[in-house]
């Protein structure tokens, strides 16, 4: 019930400023517009618009990246917003509700809200002649694993934000920017320098985007990731996600302890 309440709170904070219709339009058009802008840039750079695996790679990668970016950007705000703007964090923190579960609820709602513009982008892909070959079960599993990896990142981010002041959105953007650059979102990881390609293979996001392409396009076009079977990608994603979650959770607990030790759980800064 408490997690549901935190999900409800997330929805209210996101949507309560306007009517539901305007919110749905805003929630959809903003990220969709961003993706279409990237398409326009692709057109300018390549001179062509349709066809070509690089377009499919870019379009699908960018559409699903939105789930990561929007959720992380939002999670980056939660602690600073609650602590400094609404000044409610200390009251939530001392309630019997686990603060960890509260953050899970908030991030889950943001993840769900990002599914709508993603659906619109997938639909628009039909007009771009994206060769869809959707494997529903694999896609559902991919969403679930994606949520695990995103909340793990969110936990790590929340841990940092517990100890810092007012850098929530920039830290969130930096986090999601790392995934954007090194996970094969809009270009294959084989174009990265050698060290970066190796680093990419240690990140859960790389396997997640590979699973995304396999579940939506029915194949992998990245030459490095093509070397793995779908099963291998899924197993690697699960193992790295679990490790990532454990590391993130422990980091969050450590940050929680340090924040309590330093007495900054109710910090308000004018920075």
């Amino acid at each position, binding site marked *: *019930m*408490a997690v*549901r*309440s935190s999900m*409800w*709170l997330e929805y*209210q*904070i996101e949507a*309560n*400023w306007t009517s539901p219709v305007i919110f749905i339009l805003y929630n959809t058009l903003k990220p969709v517009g961003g993706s279409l802008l990237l398409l326009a840039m692709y057109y300018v750079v390549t001179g062509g618009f349709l066809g070509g695996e690089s377009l499919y790679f870019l379009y699908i990668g960018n559409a699903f990246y939105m789930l990561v970016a929007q959720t992380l950007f939002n999670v980056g705000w939660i602690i600073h917003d609650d602590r400094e703007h*609404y*000044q*409610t964090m*200390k*009251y*939530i*923190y*001392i*309630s*019997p*509700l686990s603060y960890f579960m*509260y953050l899970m609820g908030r991030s889950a709602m943001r993840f769900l809200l990002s599914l709508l513009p993603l659906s619109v982008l997938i639909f628009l892909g039909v007009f771009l002649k994206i060769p869809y070959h959707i494997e529903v079960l694999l896609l559902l599993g991919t969403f679930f694993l994606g949520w695990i990896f995103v909340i793990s990142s969110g936990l790590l981010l929340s841990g940092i934000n517990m100890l810092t002041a007012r850098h929530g959105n920039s830290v969130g953007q930096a986090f999601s920017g790392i995934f954007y650059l090194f996970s094969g979102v809009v270009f294959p990881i084989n174009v990265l320098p050698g060290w970066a390609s190796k680093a990419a293979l240690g990140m859960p996001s790389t396997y997640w985007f590979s699973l995304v392409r396999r579940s939506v396009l029915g194949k992998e076009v990245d030459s490095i990731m093509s070397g793995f079977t779908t099963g291998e990608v899924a197993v690697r994603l699960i193992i790295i996600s679990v490790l990532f979650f454990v590391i993130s959770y422990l980091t969050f607990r450590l940050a929680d302890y340090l924040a*309590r*030790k330093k*007495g900054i*759980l*109710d910090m308000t800064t004018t920075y």
Partner: protein
Amino acid sequence: MTQKGLRRVLPSQRVDAIACEHVDRIFESKNRTVQALNDVTITVKKGELFGLLGPNGAGKTTLIKILTTLLLPTSGKAHVYGYDVTRDENKIRPIINMVSGGEYSGYGLLTVRENLWMFSQFYGIPGKEANQRIKTLMERLGIANMGDRKIRTLSTGERQRVSIIRAFMTEPQVVFLDEPTLGLDVETARLIRRFIQEWLEKDSERTVLLTTHYMMEADELCSRIAIINEGKIVALDTPSGLKNMVKKEISLNIEIFPEIKVDWLNNLDGVIGFNSKDAGGNLSLRVVVEHDAAVGEVLAGINQHGGKISYLNKEEPTLEDVFLKLTGRGLE
């Protein structure tokens, strides 16, 4: 008292509501080290309304933060209902709540009812029961017609009433009130004080720890008061017991014009403490002296320093006089 979905494990009935033993809290930063609490030892029994009286920066909020599991002590032990604040926070949280004064907490875009309902869910109170409690408390605190108003449209006093409801609707065993009437108008402050008293009277197990720098509030509400100054408990007794400490002393209220400097009182023999404040071009001075002879010396000193006395009154000792005697400075 057990609520659905809420783990309330109350230990032995014989434990004290709050127990602090030699609690120290030191804040260290690059530039300075501040000892916010220095060897604080207090015990608050169940059913008590215990006051912590001291000026701003005395350490009152730091102690509340430790007891509400928001802050770890540097050393010493602190227990709430027998549970250790450093280890048993999950057992403490269901049985406590807190209200801080002088802040603007709450989700401004949500209505009063939505804000309160959301917090009730964080405490696992079933929806129907939560709505009933919210309704009853809103009526009791005179904001029954404000349920659909957004928090951001409320005045300071109205917001504070919402904060009070947020804390008390969870039916805590121990409530921590940190300057709950700070910045409120007289009527709202009185309403909140009356509410706190009535809430305590309904159940002998309920306990309140109140911090304030309003001596009248502490005097009116508290069964016992600890006076805290620079992180140290300097006295602990009933309000009358504390006032007995200055029974023999003489408290003077003096209005002086024009405003003069009164630092010389520090060196005057027989002056225990004084507190002065600007009163629109005049100076309002409260002095506690040891004996009648010192009264004459104070009055003569004012005259020598160019001040004229427009009002002079000898008063019954107050908690502020106790504070002046113990620390040599005023509460404000």
